[in-house]
Structures are given as C-alpha cells and as structure tokens.
C-alpha cells in the first residue's frame, strides 16, 4: 500500500476519532450537566437538603427498631395479628395477576398479526394495551375507591387493568415468535378462533406466559402494598396507620414491615427459581411496568 493511502486512512481515522470524541464528550457533558443540575434543583426544592439530611437517614429506622426491640415480646403476636392483612395483599396481587394473564393473553392474541380475530382492529388493541400500561395503578384505584368505596376490589381492578396492558405487550412478543403453521392447520379443519388459539397457540406459548406471569405476580405484590397505603386495604393500609400514629405503634410497624419484607423476598426468590426453570423472562422490561 502506498504511503498516500496510509495517510488517507490516518486522516480519516483521526477525523473519525475527533468526531467520536466530540460526540461522546457532548453526550457525557450533557448527561453530567443534567444529573448535576437535576440534583441541584431537586435539592433546592426539597424541604431538607441532601447534605444536611443524609447523616439523619438512620434516625427513623433507629426509633422504630428501638421500640420494636423494647417490645420484642409482642412481636409474634403482631405478626399473627397482621397476617390476615398480608393475605389480603397477596390475594389482591394473585387475583389481579390472574385477570391480567387472562386479559393480557386475549388482548395479545387479538393484536398479533396472523392470530388476530379482526386483523383490522390490531392497532386499536395495541393502543388499548399502551393506554392500560400507561395509567398508573394509583389513578384507577382512587377513582374506583370513589365509585365503589374503599377495600381490596378497587385495588384489584386497578392492578389487573395495568397488568393486562403490561402482560399483553410481553405476551404479544411471545406470540410473534410462535409458529403460525399449527394455527393454519387448525383453520383448515374448520376450527373456531377460540379453538385455534387454545389448541394451536397456547401449547406453544404457555411456558413463556407462565414465566412472565410469575414475575408479574411478584411485582403486583409490591403494587398492592403501595395501593393499601392510599386506602385500598391490605398490609399497606395497616402499615400506613401504624406508621402514622408513630411512637407506641412502631413495634407494629416493625412487625408489618417484617411480614412485607419476608413476603417480597420469598416470592422474589421462588419466582426467579421457577422462571429459571421455565425460561428466561426479561426482567428489565417487566419490573415496574
């Protein structure tokens, strides 16, 4: 190769490097600037500043733990007393996950090309899932609490609504990878749409569905605890009341907290074990959705 061509390669590369450095420099600078200024804005808007506050982070846990330790003897009693509330929270999560799986499966099939009952309506069902995913549970829960009155049902409906959207999206990705051949085979014998879906698609997608559903269940337990905090019953409601009252009930708070923590960790471990067996779900896309 002649020296001229090497020089050309050199210049090109140097130019490329400069551009890349510039871009990544700008990107980095923008990111750092956003982080720093964002932090400063948040810090200024907060009642307590970060630098004053972080030494006090343990204040609250300390008070709670101190009281809980002092009344350690009552802890088992509290654990038993709040167990029904925990069951309610788990029930909310379980029922909403169930409905979410059913609704999500249905919507995902209606919105997957090749499977859809009404192919023209695919965009409609897709948007429906998007909207269901986008509305935070707390919004639906509060509206329903107004209409239906407080309790577990509004929370259940709210979480189920969101779950339908979230699982529907993941399920339709699973469906897209399912083979259409069996479906067509069933169509050729004159099977109805339901038969095609249940007999032709479900056997293919069931393991993936199950894996996602388990992960969702775990997420829904957290969601139902949070909704309890805004009036939807369950362990979150108990926690809020105990925490609000403060001193005198911190032992109860601690007991509730222990229950909640143990539950979340248990289901987390169980579901990740089970999912590992079934197939690998994509946690990143699932969490919080």
């Amino acid at each position: 190769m002649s020296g001229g061509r090497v020089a050309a390669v050199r210049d090109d590369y140097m130019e490329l490097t400069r551009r890349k450095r510039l871009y990544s420099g700008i990107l980095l600078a923008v990111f750092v600037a956003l982080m720093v200024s964002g932090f400063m804005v948040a810090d200024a808007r907060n009642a307590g500043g970060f630098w004053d506050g972080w030494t006090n982070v343990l204040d609250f846990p300390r008070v709670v733990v101190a009281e809980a330790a002092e009344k350690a003897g009552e802890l088992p009693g509290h654990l038993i007393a709040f167990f029904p509330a925990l069951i309610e929270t788990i029930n909310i999560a379980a029922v909403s996950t169930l409905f979410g799986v059913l609704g999500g499966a249905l919507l995902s099939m209606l919105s997957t090309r090749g499977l859809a009952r009404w192919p023209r309506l695919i965009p409609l069902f897709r948007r429906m899932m998007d909207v269901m995913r986008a509305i935070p549970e707390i919004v639906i829960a509060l509206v329903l609490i107004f209409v239906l009155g407080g309790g577990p049902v509004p929370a259940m409906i709210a979480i189920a609504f969101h779950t339908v959207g979230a699982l529907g999206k993941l399920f339709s990705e699973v469906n897209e990878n399912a083979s259409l051949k069996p479906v067509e085979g069933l169509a050729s014998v004159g099977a109805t749409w339901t038969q095609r879906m249940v007999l032709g698609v479900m056997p293919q997608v069931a393991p993936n569905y199950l894996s996602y559903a388990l992960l969702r269940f775990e997420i829904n337990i957290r969601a139902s605890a949070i909704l309890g905090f805004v009036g939807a019953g369950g362990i979150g409601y108990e926690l809020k009341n105990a925490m609000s009252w403060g001193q005198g009930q911190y032992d109860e708070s601690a007991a509730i907290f222990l229950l909640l923590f143990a539950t979340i960790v248990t289901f987390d471990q169980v579901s990740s074990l089970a999912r590992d067996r079934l197939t690998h779900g994509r946690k990143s896309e699932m969490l919080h959705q």
Partner: protein
Amino acid sequence: QDGIEEFRIGILGGENAQDRLNSHECLKEYTEEALGVPVKLFAPADYDGVIQGLLGGTIDMAWLGASAYAKTYLDDPEAVEPVLVKINLDGSYGYHSIGFARKDSNIASLDDMAGKKFGFGDPNSTSGYLIPSIEIPQETGATMENGDYFGEVVFTGGHEQTIVAVNNGDVDGGVTWADGQGNWEDGYNSGALRKAVDAGLIDMNDLVEIWRSKPIPEGPIVLRKALPQEVKATMTQLIDGMYDEDRDCTYNISAGESLGFDPISHDAYLSIIDARKSKSQ
C-alpha cells in the same frame, strides 16, 4: 448558629395541595419580607408528612392539630414549641369532633351503631381519631376494637374521605370536625362538613349527627425549637399581628373566618398529650 438560610413552612391537608400552597402565598411573602431569607412552602400528603418534617428538622413552622402536636412532643420534646392558636369568631378556641351517619340508615345515636362499621379519619387527627377513640368508649363502655362494640373500625385516611365514605354507605358512621356553631343544614359554620357542603359533595339533609365530643382545643402553630430566638420572635409577632394587618391573608391561612391568632403555650395541650400517651401504651 446565628442565622438561617431559608425558612420552610409545612401546611396540613384539608384542601387540595395546590390550593393549600396558593392560600399561603401571602404568608410566604410576609415572611420573606420579615426574615429576609427565601421561604418555601410544603404540602405533604398527610399529617405525618408534616410531623416527620418537624422532627427531622426539615420544616420550621407548621400549624398542627392538637394530637399531631402531641405526637411531635412525645417523639421529641425538644423538637417544636407551640406559639399561637386560632381564635374563633366567638372568641373561643375549640371545636368539636362530630359523629354522623346517613339518615336513611336509621342510625340516630351511638346506640344504633352497635355492630356497625365505624370510620375514623387520619390516625394523627385529634377530632378524627384521638378524642373520639377515647370519649366514645367511655360512652359505649366498650373498646374500639373490631367486633367489640362496633362491628368494624377503619381508618378512612382523612376527614374528606370519612365524609364521602359515610355518604356512600361504605361505613355506617364516622367522625369529623366542625365548630358546632350555626346550622347542621349548612354543615355548621366551619369545618370539614361545611367544606363538603360548599363543594356540593353532600346534602346535609341526608345526614344526621349521632355524637359530639367535648370541646377540643384548636391546634397550635408551632415553630422548631432550634430556630434562632429572633426568628421565632419575628414569626410569632408576624402572625399574631396578621389579623390587624391583612384580613384576607388571615382568612386564607386560617381556612375561614376567625379573629386571628393568640399566643399559647405547651401547657394548653397537656391533656391531649396525656390522652395520646395513654393510647400509645
């Protein structure tokens, strides 16, 4: 520490957050002028948010309910000190916890509530929880435990929620606050019922009063004890003199007609503190 860099005021619930901030905008301006430092307003979601702010030193001033003050005091006696209290139009500074139910549920008194579902508001509310939770058992002769006298006892989360819950029939009876003056039909002169009526949420014809507490002392405006002395003095003076200076602003920050504020001390709340302490055992 001689000076402060900013002054933070916490505002309790009752109205939607933005309205609360708006109605305190005038106070913010006066305070900035008086102290010469930036003032920030905070409207946390519930009583506990303000209390934690006072305890953690992230909020300098707030108008607390009596029970909330008691909680703050019990958690940390050195955290805050009460300075002022609101005076009602008739010169008193008390109000009542009102028990109420739906008329068509055929509940006319506490006796009819036996076995029914009863709703408190926020656990930190004086009229929504502390006082009724002490005085009602005295009348019924039974505890407030589920199934003891009432079939079920729940927290609705706040005064507004209690009113709606009773009106909807989610709970059979509940407690909220009112000054107890004026007409039942209007929801009394001031209080949570009145606000609900004004908002068109409820029709007082549908509701009946089933119980009324002894007068409850109005909650204090508190300042963080650790604040510099002159800041505390300036703020006390500012709000004390507000009624003469600016009626509108007084109306805004006291959530209705009043005669302004009077000084008050810790001793006025001893009984509430005792009550709260007894509930905490």
